[in-house]
């Protein structure tokens, strides 16, 4: 292939491709899955944890979910150390906006500004792109609850339901058939579990391997709730019962 065009991150190949960006997306395709569903009354983010060694000390609240500001959270898929840099930058961008305008930053602007930064790594400098895709879930007074996805190229778009990381194509096709307009959070959470259960078919889905958070609005405040392990175990076992029943039919 046109190998001589892929070591320089900022050069096009003759076919008009940016190989480094594509290789970055490859890296993400092997990382832990992140799934997001925008329901009418909340957003659910479900993530597969890859690092589950029992010797690990649990100092962090979450491995893949991060709060960005009072009204936005994100989940990451890809190289964790790259993700830390981007999350830190996102937090600073949001605070700078808040300081300047004394109001919370609109979701799309936050995503857009970070993506502009990501894009520079595909055009200038000779540094490799960030090997991270992110799902952003947040609220702003202009458009309400929103779900966005961005990738190493600096492209982003708003979604009603989406998936990044390993087996994301399988998840997306399931979402396309099962996602219904106007779905509520009460139905979206089991749907997320159902899809995670399906795509993690080889490795059994357990509560230790899953991180699930919901973003809702109540009392004029945005709440990010991380579902506790006991509740996850309950949801997973309910899913397994349903799956066994479906198999029998």
């Amino acid at each position, binding site marked *: 292939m046109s190998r001589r065009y892929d070591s320089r991150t900022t050069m096009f190949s003759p076919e008009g491709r940016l190989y480094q960006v594509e290789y970055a997306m490859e890296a993400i395709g092997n990382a832990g899955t992140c799934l997001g569903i925008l329901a009418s009354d909340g957003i659910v983010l479900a993530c597969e944890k890859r690092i589950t060694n029992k010797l690990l000390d649990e100092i*962090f*609240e979450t491995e893949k979910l991060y*709060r*960005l*500001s*009072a009204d936005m959270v994100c989940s990451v898929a890809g190289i964790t150390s790259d993700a830390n840099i981007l999350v*830190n930058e996102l*937090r*600073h961008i949001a*605070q*700078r906006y*808040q*300081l300047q305008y*004394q109001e919370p930053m609109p979701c799309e602007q936050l995503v857009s500004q970070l993506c502009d930064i990501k894009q520079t790594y595909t055009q200038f400098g000779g540094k490799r792109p960030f090997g991270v895709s992110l799902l952003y879930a947040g609220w702003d007074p202009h458009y309400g609850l929103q779900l966005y996805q961005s990738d190493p190229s600096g492209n982003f778009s708003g979604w009603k339901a989406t998936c990044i990381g390993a087996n994301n194509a399988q998840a997306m096709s399931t979402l396309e058939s099962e996602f219904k307009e106007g779905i509520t959070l009460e139905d979206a959470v089991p749907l997320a579990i159902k899809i995670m259960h399906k795509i993690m078919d080889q490795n059994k889905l357990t509560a230790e391997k899953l991180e699930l958070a919901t973003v809702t609005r109540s009392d004029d405040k945005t709440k990010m709730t991380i579902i506790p392990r006991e509740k996850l175990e309950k949801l997973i076992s309910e899913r397994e019962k349903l799956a066994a029943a479906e198999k029998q039919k």
Partner: protein
Amino acid sequence: MSIDEYNGSAIVAMTGKDCVAIATDTRFGVQRTTITTDFERVHKMGPTLYVAMSGLVTDAYTVAARLKYRLNLYELRENRPVNPKVFVSMVSNLLYERRFGPYFSTPVVAGLDPTSGKPFIAGFDCIGDPTIGTDFVTDGTSGEQLMGMCEAFWRPDLNKDELFEAISQSLLNAQDRDSYAGWGAQVYIIEKDKVTKKILKARKD
């Protein structure tokens, strides 16, 4: 006319038994002219952490906004509410960064430690020298008057109602002796599980 007297303010914080109170006047004026009488000087920085800014209002507002910026990032990174002692260092650092062109505003911090619930108050000068108070901290154009009033009314281990009385009387009587402060007063009583805000009727001059 000194820049510290351009707007005028009266700020006091007092410790009680398992509670703290912070109180300010509510006059916003430009030299002798009073512009509004419902000016909020107290800013909430956490569920049990409040800061009131004295001095030039534009600087007071800016310092409070910059402080909130740093505090938000701290709490996102550390995933816990800030400890008042650490907050004092944050304030001190922010003010000292402007050592040779300072903000003409001095904060007064009042809060409870998020884990132990111990009362905590602190005052600063405009370049960030922190004074962690044991009984009370006063600030503003009425600072000296407040010192005298607090010395008379404060006792150790006041319960929340006694504390409210002590801080209110100190504030009201001190600000009456200062033409740049007054026109109303607000008192925040901070306890471990709730914060009460009371608005006092004051002399409207």
